[in-house]
């Protein structure tokens, strides 16, 4: 009988403490919104990757409510207006919330995956947190999306000089891209992520730029046809950034999300590698070493000009230069240190 009493007492105690725990958890849980830009919407790849983060966020006391946006501009505007507590955008769009991380997509800043990995790892360190914060915003994670390449309908245009007068589908909200296109003497044809592929495929532009992950779904091979080619030179490293309003989340949330994001890098790189493998080998145009060096120099000049104009962040350019020089210490820029 005594045993039975003890068991009863124990189970009552267990029930009380369980309800107390769940009561505390319920009270402590913050409901916060997360607006995710995904060109496909709620069934899209980015939205689904972010959905996987919800249980982890809950463990940190945040009940994230995800909302899909197919229009990146509206997602950014809603975030700015306070309708979203956090948001997922491309690095270029993120520039208005954090100039440092928003400059990681700077042209020619990061030549390849290895350098990108080094930068991401560097920025995941807790001591990098200061760079992640800017005013009322904090960058709570960066996901790599691979190199941006130049797609050309006529592969005879195989040097930058020959781009003169050619029509380039250009993201018109990005001052850096506009400057670059004008710098090489090409003409800007305003485009968005939703319509650039159509313009390229139907011939209303001669040139477009996009990451490899866009090649198959948007059928860019149609615009390339028999005569087109893809310039094997990384114009920039595209990335997605999670940005949070600092005052809407508890202290340390940004770092936790950055650590979580770091666990997804390999997955992201696999997606990029799979997408690059789908590109027909004959499309790749390999510029000569001499030309490559010339392009790198040209992009450097554009970066410095854009930095001086206030578009790119000087610290970000310096970090990228340091990473490039870590890999290739003999580069002339490593001694010059202009960035």
């Amino acid at each position, binding site marked *: 009988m005594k045993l039975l009493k003890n068991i009863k007492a124990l189970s009552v105690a267990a029930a009380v403490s369980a309800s107390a725990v*769940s009561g505390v*958890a*319920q009270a402590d*849980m913050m409901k916060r919104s997360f607006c995710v830009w995904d*060109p*496909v*919407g*709620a*069934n*899209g*790849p980015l939205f*689904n*990757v972010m*959905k*996987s983060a*919800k*249980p*982890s966020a*809950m*463990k940190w006391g945040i*009940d994230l409510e995800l*909302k*899909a946006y*197919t229009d990146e501009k509206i997602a950014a505007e809603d975030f700015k207006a306070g309708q979203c507590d956090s948001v997922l955008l491309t690095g270029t769009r993120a520039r208005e919330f954090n100039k440092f991380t928003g400059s990681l997509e700077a042209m020619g800043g990061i030549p390849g995956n290895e350098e990108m990995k080094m930068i991401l790892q560097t920025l995941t360190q807790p001591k990098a947190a200061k760079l992640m914060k800017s005013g009322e915003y904090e960058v709570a994670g960066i996901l790599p999306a691979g190199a941006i390449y130049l797609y050309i309908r006529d592969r005879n245009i195989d040097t930058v000089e020959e781009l003169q007068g050619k029509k380039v589908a250009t993201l018109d909200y990005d001052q850096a891209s506009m400057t670059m296109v004008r710098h090489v003497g090409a003409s800007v044809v305003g485009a968005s*992520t*939703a*319509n*650039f*592929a*159509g313009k390229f495929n139907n011939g209303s532009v001669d040139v477009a730029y996009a990451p490899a992950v866009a090649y*198959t*779904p*948007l*059928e860019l091979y149609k615009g390339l046809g028999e005569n087109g080619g893809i310039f094997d030179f990384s114009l920039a490293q595209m990335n997605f950034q999670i940005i949070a309003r600092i005052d809407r989340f508890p202290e340390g949330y940004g770092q936790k999300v950055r650590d979580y994001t770091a666990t997804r890098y390999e*997955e992201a790189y*696999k*997606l990029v590698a*799979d*997408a690059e493998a*789908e590109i027909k080998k004959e499309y790749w145009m390999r510029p000569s070493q001499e030309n490559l060096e010339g392009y790198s120099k040209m992009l450097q000049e554009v970066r410095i000009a854009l930095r001086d104009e206030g578009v790119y962040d000087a610290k970000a350019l310096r970090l990228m230069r340091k990473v490039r020089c870590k890999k290739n210490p003999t580069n002339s820029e490593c001694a010059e240190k202009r960035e």
Partner: protein
Amino acid sequence: MKNFGVIKGLLKKSILLSVVSLQLVGCQTFKDKVVYAPAGDVMQNLAKEHTVPYMLGTEDLAVSCAMSEALSPLLMAFGRVTSNPDQLGVMMGLSAGACEEQRAWDNELRYLRAMRDLRPDEAEDALITQKRHLVNAAKRQFSAYNHLVNYYGEPGGECPDLDDEFDQFIWMAGMLSGLQALNNEIQSTTGIGVPKNIASKVERGTSCIDDDLWWGVPMAMKAAVWAMLPGALPQGENAWERLETAQAKGEDARVRLPNVMYAMAAFTNGKDELVKDIIRRHADQVKKHPANPEYALIDTTATLQLQALSDRLWTENTGHRTPVGGLGTFWDDKKESNVEVMELDDLL
């Protein structure tokens, strides 16, 4: 006599040759060609002429799904001895994929309940399990799509000869499998090699079959791709208007599959109220007008797919799935009653 000698010699040689060649080809080839191949042809024809039409006329999706899971290896193995049963492969893959989709849905609901109850470990486990099922579903559906490609060629280019209704039906089922494979691969966040251009190819391939004959499904598929793939909408087109027209065609034919594409497109675009309206209308139509008996299974499939969407919405908002008999109703519906109420004041 001289001739006889020659004939005898030839006979001897040919017997010798036969013995040698029999030894070479072995007993297996004999069994394959004489025993299994005709049996395979019979099985294939039986399945094509009777099993598929019979199953399409039934309403029990679970039975059809179990049959596909169990019989796929048996039927597909005949591809080793006779012509590849690609057309059946399309049906088997699509149907067996649906079994895995069903399991994935259950885990999506478990995930949603766990999130509501603030149990993140359970939620995470449910998500992982869901993704495993989605990967299996995508693989099966992608194999169905590959059978389509083997038999008819890749959709999106020139239309193949789709002589009879069976060919057209398989063409439609194969393209549906392709779209489902892509969608499930994306949901699983695991790359299994489904080419990302299937959506664009299917969008073009739907023009190879008659929209009126196939209950508006071809246009519904096309318009769903327009609504979901960035930049796919041709100038001057309106995906939502097309989806509405397709919905009406499905209702007229009492094979209401276009509703699924309509609801998926609406859900992806965050139009939750439209999703609810489509489900309400579907439930109402199903009550009033029974399914076309020839394609009852497809109409039931549409109802179950919409029920899955409804379950997701119900679970998110109430913690449980759509109540029994409650498809087409929602937790926040305003209850209106026509029954008169008695005055109680003098009794109180």
